[in-house]
């Protein structure tokens, strides 16, 4: 157990993998592309997390400092892996900062990229200032400035949250469900209602996918305790009458067209494959899923196995994933990495 494990990506998954390895005395090198660790929840300034209710900067910030302080983890920020060669137990990675890392195994925790709403122009993002994304609202809440219409700073009286923006849409080549956005939207709707009790929040949905206990803790709670309204309609377009935003669509339950005025429209944006995945696939020699995420080879045996032996994957690099599942997968991948290095040293000792 001399060579470190190379971990690529310092989000919740990468941080969890590094911590897991360190707790059993295994060294790790954590390579992060940006200046700071923490991944999407920190980079995008999420507010209170599902399902813990903790602020992202506390929960994920805690994971960051735990790793930064750990002597077993060598953190390299502002760096990416330029090339990667060798075999299990004996890899060599060349980083963009000119250094070389010898590693026994690698774990890819390169995460996802937020869907860019500009790619659905009919829903008004980029055209109307008061059409925003869930990440923007997360930032309004986490920064303490509160939920306000960007155009003039007024507090909205009526907010529409459009689900599945950038997910489940063959028009833009995205056939996956981003898994967390229904729950995040229900949570956000409650946060808005709590902050602005006079503001009515409508969620436009095709299906509500608040899986597992999120059903009662978020979907039911938002309806029963916070009077959030759910309307079954996939919105056709968002326009403006010069004063209010106008949301157009078909209310499928009553078979009627709707053109409803709103102060603010929020896109519940989905989780795209990391934009770097083509490069990552080429550098590490790992296959991608047809939708562009990093493909898993094995669901039940070697956890986190990719198409390349000795290289593992965890978190939202595999598919849209929650933080807690990303962390669980990272722990499993750390175990797989150690096991693969041990079996290599067993081979070497024979």
């Amino acid at each position, binding site marked *: 157990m001399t060579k470190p494990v190379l971990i690529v990506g310092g989000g919740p998954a990468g941080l969890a993998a590094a911590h897991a390895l360190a707790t059993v005395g295994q060294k790790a090198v954590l390579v992060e592309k940006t200046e700071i660790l923490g991944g999407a929840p920190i980079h995008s300034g999420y507010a209170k997390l599902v399902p813990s209710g903790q602020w992202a900067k506390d929960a994920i910030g805690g994971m960051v400092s735990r790793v930064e302080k750990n002597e077993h983890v060598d953190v390299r920020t502002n760096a990416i892996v330029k090339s990667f060669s060798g075999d299990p137990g004996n890899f060599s990675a060349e980083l963009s900062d000119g250094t070389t890392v010898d590693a026994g195994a690698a774990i890819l925790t390169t995460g996802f990229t937020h869907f860019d709403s500009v790619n659905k122009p009919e829903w008004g993002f980029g055209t109307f200032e008061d059409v925003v994304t869930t990440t923007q609202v997360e930032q309004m809440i986490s920064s303490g400035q509160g939920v306000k219409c960007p155009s003039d700073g007024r507090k909205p009286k009526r907010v529409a949250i459009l689900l599945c923006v950038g997910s489940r849409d063959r028009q833009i080549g995205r056939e996956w469900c981003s898994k967390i956005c229904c729950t995040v939207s229900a949570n956000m709707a409650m946060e808005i209602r709590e902050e602005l009790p006079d503001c*009515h929040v*409508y969620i436009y949905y095709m299906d509500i996918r608040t899986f597992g206990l999120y059903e009662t803790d978020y979907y*039911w709670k938002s*309806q*029963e305790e916070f*009077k959030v*309204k*759910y*309307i*079954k309609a996939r919105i056709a377009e968002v326009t403006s009458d010069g004063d209010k935003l106008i949301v157009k669509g078909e*209310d499928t*339950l*009553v*078979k*009627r*067209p*709707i*053109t*409803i*005025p709103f102060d603010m429209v929020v896109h519940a944006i989905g989780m795209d494959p990391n934009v770097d995945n083509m490069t990552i696939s080429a550098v590490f020699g790992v296959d991608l899923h047809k939708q562009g995420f990093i493909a898993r080879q094995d669901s039940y045996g070697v956890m986190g196995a990719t198409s390349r032996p000795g290289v593992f994957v965890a978190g939202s690099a595999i598919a849209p994933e929650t933080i807690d599942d990303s962390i669980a997968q990272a722990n499993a991948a750390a175990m797989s990495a150690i096991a693969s290095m041990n079996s290599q040293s067993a081979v070497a000792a024979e």
Partner: protein
Amino acid sequence: MPIHEKSLIREENIRTRDDLVIDGVDVSGHWSTFIESRVVTDYNEDLEDQIAGLPGGENIHRCWQCGSCTNSCTVNALNADFNPRYWIYLIRTGMESELLRDKDIIWQCVSCNKCTYVCPREVAPEGVMKATAHWLELMGHTPKSPSTLFDEVFSEQVIKRGKIEESGIIRGFFKKTGQPLMQNWLTTMAFRLFKKLPFGMMFHMAKSTIFRPKTKGWRKSQLAIEDYIIEQDTKHRKLLGLDKPTSPTPQASNDNATSTLVEAAE
């Protein structure tokens, strides 16, 4: 091109102008036929709050439109237009005019509560039907239903005397619903009762009919009940934006709260 959703076109939404000339072209009669738009242009958030504020309607906001209530409904089996799921939706989104189209069947709910037992979200749709019928009455959209009238006569007696006396209820109900007192089934029943009933019981019944006894020490309870009824009614009317209470207690003759209390204290 065929019109696929013909069922959505309503007779009253078809407009034809008998006299219309556009740019010198005569388009009178069927040439100017058009169908009024069905577009919903706003939500009226008050409607749900109003129904939710009436007894039975409290949990309407929980409904997720699964349709279990409608599927299980006794009345729906006989009349497909009786659709609790749909009305709940109209109320929640504030489509008042659409709801009013069905005002003459909503009260037909038979309170079997099949919907209540089947509803996965414990909306208690039967309660919502009751609240909706109540709302329709309070807003003056529908006359009081026969069952409401029956309830009124019944509770009027209970409130006044702490007891009921059946013949009084029947007479009161018939009077309110404009039915003749002499009805075949009733005279037959009375005749048979007269023949079969033990003398003691008959004597007792006759005495009650004539003297209308009160429960002992009822006055206090009567005042408390009346207070409560006035309080609730005032609350409901305020919620619905109706200023003047019309019948604060089931005693329809009183038109304000004080006179009821005065009478009660007599």
